[in-house]
């Protein structure tokens, strides 16, 4: 309560209001550009904060993060390309809804869910920072390994018709994740003497290639005017009935997002995939998922927006950045001589209160700016295909190039686009690849770190109760989905045999 009261006066501080609005607007734009991740969007602003007043500078950066996490869903829905890693799960149902001419509603659900997720995340950040920080500390390397495995168990849901194809796609992602510096010894793996590969291949390049580039290739290879999508450029918020239906996936998303946000290193991508998975599991209409279910947008979008606030918990309480984005934010604090960590709350309580107020303004601002900008976005994707595709190509090429100013990265993206094109032809799903790519490093490094800790004793994974619990849940998920698939296949066979019998 005191926290809220302390933050109230800052709601009237003009510098904070302006910083929050500029930040969130810039963030939505950056997040919506495929290839520009939230952390790059923030890094671009960093030089401007040197001369700013500390609280306004921090608010500017944190609001950018919130805006970017939301902005990522816009191209996911409109052009089937997630603007950020964490928006990848939104592609599934978001683009389907767009194809059905319901882009306005899809964007409305995403904005509405992002607002709910952000508000829940902010409330948790303000009121429960202390206990939540304890959760982050309880996780040891074996527990992180188990968390990664639990994340990978979602592959079964994302695989679509063929589990084998899903597994192959995931393996592809896991293989790409091994390129770069070995997490334990520090030697180079699969870099072929190239210094460009030293830091590994960033998921964003593969994602942009797989989704956007391959889509452009696929459209270019079709002669006739392909599936024209015409949505009215108007944002529709869900009505009462639909809003009620979205409560469950939103709560799941907010819960999972807040949990993953608090854990350093886990992040928004796992959160959105897992909440998509859970929303489907607990939905009354699971069959709609993948075919344009509003719940399939609500869950991941609530989750990745909740992450943007709760990711501040380990940063503020320990000074530990859990992701690239929060690392930039940490840089913002350090530039102004503020050291995040246990003492920050005592020494610079005014900055914290100002930050909370700024985040609140940014979340409200996100809805306002979203409503103002989205109709323009829909109008843009309604332009004739050739113009739109040329625009998208220019956008992703410049986006990828701008990350490190490197043509090598553009090459990686184009290669991924070609691979994605053939994966489309052979009907391989993309999302398992993204999941493998994002989780591969987390799983591998923590697996090996655990074994270094224990001296190659594998019981380290069963002695840690968090690890044991998560691994058990993952095993149940996997067993459950295999049984479900087997049962479905058996039923099909039986029906086939029955119809044959009746004919004969």
């Amino acid at each position, binding site marked *: 309560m005191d926290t809220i009261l302390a933050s109230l006066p800052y709601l009237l501080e003009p510098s904070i209001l302006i910083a929050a609005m500029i930040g969130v607007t810039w963030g939505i734009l950056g997040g919506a550009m495929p290839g520009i991740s939230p952390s790059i969007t923030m*890094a671009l602003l*960093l*030089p401007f904060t*040197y001369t700013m*007043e500390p609280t306004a500078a921090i608010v500017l950066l944190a609001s950018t993060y919130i805006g970017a996490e939301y902005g990522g869903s816009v191209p996911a829905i409109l052009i089937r390309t997630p603007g950020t890693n964490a928006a990848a799960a939104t592609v599934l149902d978001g683009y389907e809804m767009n194809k059905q001419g319901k882009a306005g509603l899809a964007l409305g659900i995403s904005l509405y869910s992002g607002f709910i997720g952000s508000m829940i995340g902010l409330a948790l950040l303000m009121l429960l920072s202390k206990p939540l920080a304890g959760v*982050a*500390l*309880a*996780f*040891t*390397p074996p527990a992180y390994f188990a968390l990664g495995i639990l994340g990978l168990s979602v592959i079964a849901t994302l695989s679509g018709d063929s589990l084998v194809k899903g597994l192959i796609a995931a393996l592809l992602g896991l293989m790409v994740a091994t390129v770069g*510096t*070995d*997490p*334990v*010894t*520090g*030697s*180079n793996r699969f*870099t072929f*003497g190239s*210094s*460009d590969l*030293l*830091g590994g291949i960033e998921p964003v390049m593969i994602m942009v290639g797989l989704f956007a580039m391959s889509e452009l290739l696929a459209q270019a290879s079709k002669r006739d005017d392909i599936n024209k999508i015409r949505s009215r450029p108007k944002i529709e918020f869900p009505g009462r009935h639909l809003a009620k239906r979205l409560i469950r996936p939103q709560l799941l998303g907010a819960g999972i997002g807040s949990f993953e946000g608090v854990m*350093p*290193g886990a992040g928004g991508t796992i959160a959105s995939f897992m909440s998509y998975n859970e929303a489907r599991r607990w939905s009354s209409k699971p069959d709609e998922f993948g075919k344009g279910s509003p719940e399939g947008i609500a869950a991941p979008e609530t989750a990745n927006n909740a992450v943007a606030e709760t990711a501040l918990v*380990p940063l503020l309480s*320990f*000074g*530990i*950045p*859990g992701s690239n984005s929060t*690392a*930039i934010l*940490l*840089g*913002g604090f*350090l*530039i*102004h*001589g503020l*050291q*995040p*960590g*246990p*003492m*920050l709350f005592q020494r610079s309580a005014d900055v914290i209160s100002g930050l909370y107020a700024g985040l609140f303004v940014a979340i409200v601002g996100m809805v306002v700016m979203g409503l103002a900008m989205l109709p323009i976005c829909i109008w843009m994707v309604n332009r004739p295909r050739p113009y739109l595709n040329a625009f998208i190509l220019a956008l992703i090429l410049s986006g990828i190039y701008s990350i*490190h100013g*490197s043509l090598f990265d553009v090459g990686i993206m184009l290669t991924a686009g070609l691979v994605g094109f053939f994966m489309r032809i052979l009907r391989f799903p993309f999302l398992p690849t993204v999941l493998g790519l994002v989780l591969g490093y987390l799983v591998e*490094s923590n697996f090996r*770190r655990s074994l*270094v*800790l224990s*001296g190659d004793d594998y019981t380290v994974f069963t002695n840690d109760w968090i690890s044991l619990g998560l691994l058990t849940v993952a095993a149940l998920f996997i067993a459950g989905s295999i049984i479900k698939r087997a049962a479905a296949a058996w039923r099909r066979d039986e029906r086939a045999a029955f119809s044959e019998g009746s004919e004969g």
Partner: protein
Amino acid sequence: MYRSCLLAFSSAVAMFAAAPLQAQEYPVDTVTLVTHSSPGGGSDVFLRELSRYLGPILGATVVVENVTGGSGATAMANLAQSPADGSRLYATTPTFIYTSLLSNPEYSFDDLDPLVNFFIDPEVIFTAASSPYETLEDVIQHARDGRGRWGAANPASLERQSLELLKAETGVNAAVVTHEGGGDLMINVLNGTLEIGVGEIQELKGQLEAGEIRLLASLTSDRIEAYPDVPTVQEAGYDVFVRKFRGLAGPQGLPDDVIAAWERAVPEVLALQEYKAIYEANSLRAEFMPNEEYQAFITEFATETEEFLRSTGVIE
């Protein structure tokens, strides 16, 4: 607030002090200090602070440029192909030696000329405040009796090297666990997964001031001024210390007047009271090395690092 006042004050002083010094001519108007660190990263913040004070004394405009990618390989290639007139210089940290040795990039530290050194970042051994270890000897004894669990932030780093050296020197059984940065390491020290971690004082400040961690020993040659009660590892009887340097290097064949200008300017900037207050608050230890000494130092550092990487099987 206090800090911005301090900055405004100190820059005013710097401008005032600069007037007579501007007479000293630096061969070029603008000096670009290139760092492989991204904006807001450790080296970046350090350089931007330094550049404020350096400009007037050097007699040139000093700007900072971030050339990220390839753990410094991109920056090294950029520098090696820059004109050797003192207009572009590279901010060195041990990373540029490690990257050169680990990945044999097209341009390595051999293609650059070390110029001068500014600072040494003191590295310390720390443990959680709640842990039972009061001295470094307690930790070593624990490892001697059974098995130690020690942590370093990154696999190919001076921090890991220092722990491996300590392990070899004491002859105990300890797992040296590497992480993806200082944050990961801190969590595992705080939750008791690891007995000790190694890091720079700067990075540990938040936890240190909050009393969450305890310093056991410093890996420096002498005790750190700001923490006079923390013994060095050498005092504990183990001959291990490391020097995490922060200096400059340039393209090969830097002209003598450029070298002379830096050898004159660096001790001056390090002696500036206002700047001193800032870098000492960050626990940086001024350790000016003139050109010749720095060249020899880098060569020795590279040889030692190469030996370490070979002995641990990281490179062949």
